Structure formats: structure tokens, C-alpha cells
């Protein structure tokens, strides 16, 4: 069974308490339709488990398949610099079907961020290393497509629908105690 090699740490984008019994890590691609389908599942899981679940999102853009995935990932990292990571993460997934660089600029403006600064950041690749760091950590952990989930460090080799993930999370919570 593949194991998460890079533990969740201060460099991660995290929702939920650090001492939650279960940590769910998603390696995702903003342009991947499967990740788009997983997005509301994760929201529902967070609602279901509340403070018992910590969620971290890491970048795994499939650049060869998805021409906007890298820019989207860097845009979320740009937003993170302005403490708006999750707002941007959500907005991108909610507008996934219309993803383009122009749209990313519009989303930035909607969050009160400077679209010109974003354009410059994407051009210079300001956050490309950050995204690449997530990516290679994912590769070494056995990420095998998007989305790939890890529950308390173990790769979830099963469907990402709500019921299956919820079951796996409950099981992990029991083991943890």
C-alpha cells in the first residue's frame, strides 16, 4: 500500500484542527473533471465529520493533459500569499468548465486581488517551484492519477464517492483511538 511520504506540515493548505483524528490529503488538478466531481464530496465530508477531520489540498497538475492546470495551481498559490487560498480553490473548482487564464484573472479580481500582479506571477513562474514540490512529493508517495486521496497517510485505493470515503474515514478514526 502506497504511503504519504511528505507529512502534512506548516507549508500545507489545511482546513480543520491539527489534532483531528483523521487527516485527508487530496492530490488534485484544477482542470481534472474527476477532481471537479470530488470537490463537493470533500465539502460534504467536512460537514459530516466537522472537527474530527483535517483536510489538506496539494497540487498535482497533469500538464500534458490539461493546458490550464498549472496556471490554475499557481493562481491558487498566488491567492494563498494573500490568505485567500481556499476561496480561490473553491472558485476555480466551481468554475472549472470555463477555465482559462482570463477567467483566473477575473476570479482574482472577485477576491479583491490584483489581476495584473497575478498575470506577472504566472509569467515569471513565481509559484512554479512550489507546485513542482507538491507534484514530486506526490509522485514519490504513489499518487496514481487525480484525484488521489490519502487517509492518515495511506493511499485510498477505492472510489472517491461520499459513502466510500466516509467509510474509510470512520475506519481510520477508529484505528486512531
Amino acid at each position, binding site marked *: 500500500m*502506497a504511503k504519504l*511520504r511528505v507529512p502534512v506540515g506548516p507549508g500545507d493548505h489545511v482546513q480543520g484542527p491539527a489534532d483531528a483524528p483523521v487527516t485527508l490529503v487530496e492530490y488534485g*488538478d484544477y482542470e*481534472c*473533471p*474527476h477532481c471537479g466531481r470530488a470537490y463537493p464530496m470533500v465539502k460534504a465530508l467536512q460537514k459530516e465529520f466537522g472537527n474530527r477531520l483535517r483536510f489538506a489540498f496539494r497540487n498535482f497538475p*497533469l*500538464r*500534458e*493533459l*490539461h493546458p490550464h492546470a498549472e496556471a490554475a495551481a499557481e493562481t491558487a498559490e498566488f491567492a494563498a500569499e494573500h490568505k485567500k487560498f481556499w476561496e480561490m480553490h473553491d472558485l476555480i473548482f466551481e468554475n472549472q468548465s470555463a477555465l482559462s487564464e482570463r477567467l483566473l484573472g477575473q476570479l482574482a479580481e472577485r477576491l479583491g486581488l490584483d489581476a495584473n500582479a497575478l498575470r506577472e506571477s504566472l509569467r515569471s513562474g513565481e509559484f512554479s517551484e512550489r507546485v513542482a514540490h507538491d507534484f*514530486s512529493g506526490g*509522485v*514519490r*508517495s*504513489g*499518487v*496514481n*492519477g*487525480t484525484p488521489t486521496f490519502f487517509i492518515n497517510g495511506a*493511499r485510498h*485505493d477505492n472510489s472517491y464517492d461520499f459513502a466510500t470515503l466516509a467509510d474509510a474515514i470512520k475506519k481510520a478514526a477508529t484505528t486512531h483511538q
Partner: protein
Amino acid sequence: MTSKVLPPGTQAPDFSLPVTPDQKLSLSELRGRPVVLAFYPADWSPVCGDQMALYNEIMPEFHRFNAEVLGISVDGVWCHAAFAHDRKLHFPLLADFEPKGAVARRYGAYRDADGTSERALFVIDKDGVIRWSYISPIAVNPGADGILDALEQLPK
């Protein structure tokens, strides 16, 4: 039932298979550098970032080890050509098509019941010796962590 997958320490059986409609590739041609031989059941699995697409994304990681990656399935050359074009693959796909699955059988990586190969991975060293082999459950894309670990452990 599947036969037993060839274990580390075994000389990798040589083969010569079509990579394009008019070209063949032999394993022995790649002597001198490590080879990742990745058997998979079929082209066109309906997910983003399937096994071959994933390897394609991480080519730079394989190139750090000077490794050649070869995908291999029982699909024919024209099927491979269409699949590779669609997924923009930057490495060869071998057609283990006629006699069907013959190479997979020699590596202990054929599924008689399904008529396809296993998801079987082999890391072969520069002298043509298998240094690592792994069969993944057929429904589980094994990712690349095991391959990269094995490449890292090859003697320089």
C-alpha cells in the same frame, strides 16, 4: 490464475516488438541504461492520469536516472498510435499483439482469463538484469513510487 512474475536477479528475456506500424524495438538495443518495462491491461482506460499518462507527466523524474520507459500491452500498433497521440505520450508503447501476449507470458505477467497483461512493472538494469518487479492489483494503478525507489537503488 497467473503465472509467477519474474523475480529480481533474473536476466530479462529479450524481445523484439513493433513500436510503430513500421518499426520494431528490441530490449537488447537499450543495454547500457536502465529500462522501466510497464505492462498494463489496455489502452483507453477512462480516467485522467491513467498509468501511461502519469508516467508521461513524470518523464523528467525518469530521465534523472537516464532510464528508458516502455509501455507494453496486447493492443495493436494502430491502437497504440491513436492512444499515444491522444494522450501526447513521449515514450514508446510496444504491441505485444502477435502472438498475443507472448512477451507478457515470458515475464509471468499474462492474465489468461482476461486475455490481457497484468499491471506488472519491471526495472531492468543496464546489463539487462531484472532488479525489481511488481504486480499491482489489476484495478489499481501502481503509480511510480516503487519504480523510482528501484531506480534509486541501482548501482551507478
